[in-house]
């Protein structure tokens, strides 16, 4: 792989300081508790940092494919193309409105030029019943 993935993470928000170019990620997604289904994750940010292996990679074009696998096994594929101009290149995909119809695992898999690079898993759960009562069905 021409680029090395330094890190990949899915969070609720991201900010890039215009002065320093420093990136901040807010609320890394690990677990989502849905009081009832269907539920909606309003916003998630898939963020990865790619680093070139040598200067010859400057100017090369690449494609990041983000595959979102929902707990109900539905799948969404989002592609982002970019040209390497710097030694490090951040790719941020902001996803609005992730529908959740059931509990399970929400999976974010990232591929570079068709090759698997990383995966971020989020548990989607219904909170445990209180005092033996079952959660409200919808």
């Amino acid at each position, binding site marked *: 792989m021409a680029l090395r993935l330094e890190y990949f993470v899915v969070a*609720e928000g991201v900010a*890039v*300081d*215009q*002065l*320093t*170019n*420093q*990136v901040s990620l807010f*609320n890394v997604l*690990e*677990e*989502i*508790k*849905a*009081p*009832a289904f*269907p*539920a*909606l*994750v*309003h*916003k998630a940010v898939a963020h990865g*940092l790619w680093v070139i292996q040598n200067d010859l990679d*400057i100017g090369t074009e690449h494609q990041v494919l983000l595959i*979102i696998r929902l707990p109900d096994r539905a799948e*969404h594929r*989002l592609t*982002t193309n*970019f040209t*390497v*101009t*710097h*030694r*490090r*290149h*951040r*790719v*941020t*995909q*902001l*996803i*609005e*409105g*992730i*529908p*959740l119809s059931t509990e399970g695992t929400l999976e974010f898999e990232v591929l570079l030029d068709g090759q698997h690079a990383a995966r971020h898993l989020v548990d*989607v759960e219904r*909170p445990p019943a209180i005092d033996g009562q079952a959660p*409200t069905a*919808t």
Partner: protein
Amino acid sequence: MLPFDQLEADSVAQLAFTVATPSALYGLLAQHPSVAAFKTALGTRTIDADDVLQRVRVWLGDFVPRIRFRHEAALCALVVAVESHGSKQIGEFIEELASLHVAELSMASRVARIANKRRKATLSANTAVIVKLGNVPSRTGGPRQDQVPSRVLIPNSFTSARVA
């Protein structure tokens, strides 16, 4: 003295006159107190990217073909001072200056090439896209509160403090 005026100080101009190579000039400017003061002003947001570009436009107003550009030393110092600024406009300014092949700005453009190279080695590029998978309800017409997942969640493992 204002940060921009410091870049036009005689000590900066003397460096540009006496140092022959752009790499040496870059190195000396990087340690110059005027450049350090300018970086501090940028860091404290006393001046911003728009101020920088505005001043460059003012300086370039004095550009006369075939006559030595009188602000070239200050322009060199400015490039070194803003090299690590994260804004896109500053990146474009350095990139454009680095791409110039004009005799009157030869030293400034060569210093800009060094700064541009360093900038690309140290700053990360950003590519961002927004994708809508589902309909996100507006705040006024949103889903019932019980349909919105709650953020999570630290396990309930806190223990109460015991007061002696």
